[in-house]
């Protein structure tokens, strides 16, 4: 290793090229293409035949070649050439510049076997990030100016390598955070949904129990009605969570039998009208419609879910429900003319816990309803899909085959969760 003995002024070609190198560094964000651009610039001011970049391998237990270029003598020699691996390891250990100046060369073969080697550590903030080795087959020897130019290039490359490593780390942290956020969203949705009815039940019960006050009959009825309704809401939420867990794990029992969809639909509509007296529903049923093989309780759950979604997310809209006869299957449509769902959310709305973020803060819900619908429909070997236009409305389409395949268990198959 040699110390630069005196400060020398670089000729302007060298300055120009050094400047150009630093420009490459600021413009190119990946170190490989950057090195491709730097090499010709560097070679004009520093003669070398091979350039090799060694970086620690992923386990950080040693060096691995990350980049190598043959630009001068030895283009045809291939793997038989010297690649400076020993020097690289030495530099990586010591952190010092290493210069190997061989005895004056004799034959061409000896030149290839005993090259001039210049090993430069890639150092940033006292951390050695790798080693760059310049190899020259034959003289002249590397001067102290050469060493400084090489060290400058190595610093620039070190910056780039670090930049790229940090970016990769950021990407993986981002991915982890995204995952954590989903998890957190789920927990906060569930806890908010569970705690809200619980808060009302607790609040109104303790109001009734206040020792210092007696409530009149109309107050008592009001509070008890709230408690009753909130208990139902809590029950519904817990049922939904249990159903979705059973459907997810494939342990939901299904009782298949012939089901008349028109009769089932009428029941569902009648029950909905009990709570929503002003609800406008138009039914549009092909007649006669063959019964489907299905679990009436589960299919009613699907219809109830779609109807209650229309009531919640398209308030005031008329709901048109159609059942159409197709060759091997029934086609059921729930259509509203509410605000619609923005296109970017449509691919996700059957996913577990997904909620339209524009509606989620205003409308109660758990993001489980449509997931449950899809699971139940798929357990009937059917299909469910959505069509929606912002400002026009939303239509859900369900296709249910009249007959179920003969074989197979009456349990829901495990879902293909990536399907969306």
């Amino acid at each position, binding site marked *: 290793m040699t110390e630069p003995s005196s400060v020398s002024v670089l000729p302007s070609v060298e300055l120009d090229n050094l400047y150009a190198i630093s420009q490459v560094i600021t413009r190119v964000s990946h170190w490989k293409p950057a090195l491709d651009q730097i090499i010709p610039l560097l070679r004009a001011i520093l003669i070398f035949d091979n350039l090799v970049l060694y970086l620690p391998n992923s386990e950080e237990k040693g060096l691995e070649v990350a980049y190598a270029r043959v630009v001068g003598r030895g283009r045809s020699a291939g793997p038989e050439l010297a690649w400076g691996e020993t020097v690289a390891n030495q530099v990586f250990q010591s952190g010092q510049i290493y210069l190997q100046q061989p005895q004056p060369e004799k034959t061409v073969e000896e030149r290839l076997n005993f090259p001039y080697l210049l090993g430069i550590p890639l150092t940033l903030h006292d951390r050695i990030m790798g080693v760059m080795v310049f190899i020259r087959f034959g003289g002249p020897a590397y001067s102290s100016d050469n060493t400084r130019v090489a060290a400058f290039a190595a610093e620039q490359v070190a910056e780039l390598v670090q930049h790229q490593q940090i970016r990769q780390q950021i990407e993986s942290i981002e991915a982890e955070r995204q995952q954590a956020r989903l998890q957190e969203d789920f927990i906060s949705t569930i*806890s908010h949904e569970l*705690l809200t009815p619980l808060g009302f039940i*607790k*609040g*109104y019960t303790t109001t009734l129990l*206040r020792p*210092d006050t007696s409530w009149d009959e109309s107050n008592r009825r009001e509070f008890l009605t709230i408690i009753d309704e909130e208990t139902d809401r809590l029950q519904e939420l817990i049922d939904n969570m249990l159903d979705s867990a059973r459907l997810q794990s494939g342990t939901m029992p299904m009782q298949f039998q012939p089901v008349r969809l028109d009769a089932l639909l009428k029941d569902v509509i009648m029950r909905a009208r009990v709570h929503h007296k002003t609800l406008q529903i138009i039914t549009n049923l092909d007649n006669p419609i063959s019964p489907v093989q299905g679990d009436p309780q589960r299919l009613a759950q699907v219809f109830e879910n779609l109807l209650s979604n229309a009531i919640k997310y398209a308030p005031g809209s008329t709901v048109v429900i159609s059942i159409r006869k197709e060759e091997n299957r029934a086609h059921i449509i729930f259509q509203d003319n509410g605000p619609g769902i923005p296109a970017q959310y449509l691919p996700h709305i059957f996913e577990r816990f997904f909620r339209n973020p524009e509606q989620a*803060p205003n409308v109660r819900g758990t993001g489980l309803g449509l997931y449950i619908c899809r699971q139940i429909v798929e357990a009937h070997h059917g299909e469910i899909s959505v069509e929606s236009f912002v400002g026009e409305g939303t239509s859900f389409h369900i296709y249910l085959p009249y007959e179920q395949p003969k074989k197979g268990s009456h349990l829901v198959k495990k879902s293909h969760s990536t399907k969306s």
Partner: protein
Amino acid sequence: MSTRILIADDEPLYNRLLQINLLTEGYEVITAVNGEEALEMITTHSPDLVILDIMMPKLDGITACERIRQFSNIPVIMLTARGEEHDRVQGLNVGADDYIVKPFSATELLARVRAVLRRTQTSRDPLQSRFFTHSNLRIDFARAEVWKDDKPVFLSATEYRLLIQFAHHVGQVLTAEQLLVAIWGPQYREDKEILWVSIARLRQKLEDNPHSPVHIVTRAGLGYLMPPNEKEFVKGEPT
């Protein structure tokens, strides 16, 4: 005159729950469904106590409380959900007097309201004005808005907080260090230059002639002040 309590919660059933219980205690109750409405009602109805839910549309409870504290010492109780310790700490940090965790019992609610009123009744100043004027400059603390000659001036959050410091200490010289610590934090104690740049920017936006300022004046070697001579507090609505 009975004690007036403002409740702000976006869940009507919570508003109702609080209201019926507070009414039995002889309090007068008014309700708001979001933070913006709550701030308006504080200035128009002068309640004696505010109960603010944290999760509210338009303006959340934390921000609302922070704004209330710019112009009023009215006691504030925050309503928070269980497990959200972060919210409770934040609420206390922005000047809330107490918090109630949902779900809560009616008797706990009433006990906390009584305790906060007892604690605060004797030691509080009366309600200050929501509006502050300084010659041609007007600040609406509730909306965090600044007007110059009846035209809105758009300030960055930092600029607004800097201006508020002066508005709250009219006639007092504030040292660079006091301002730096109050707005940027103790680690910026020595960072005079960012204060200079911010004051220069504020003067550009607020002064008719930034080279001869009337709102934020330099006292060489001491600091800066908003001079008192043109100060006037306007009660109630702006003119």
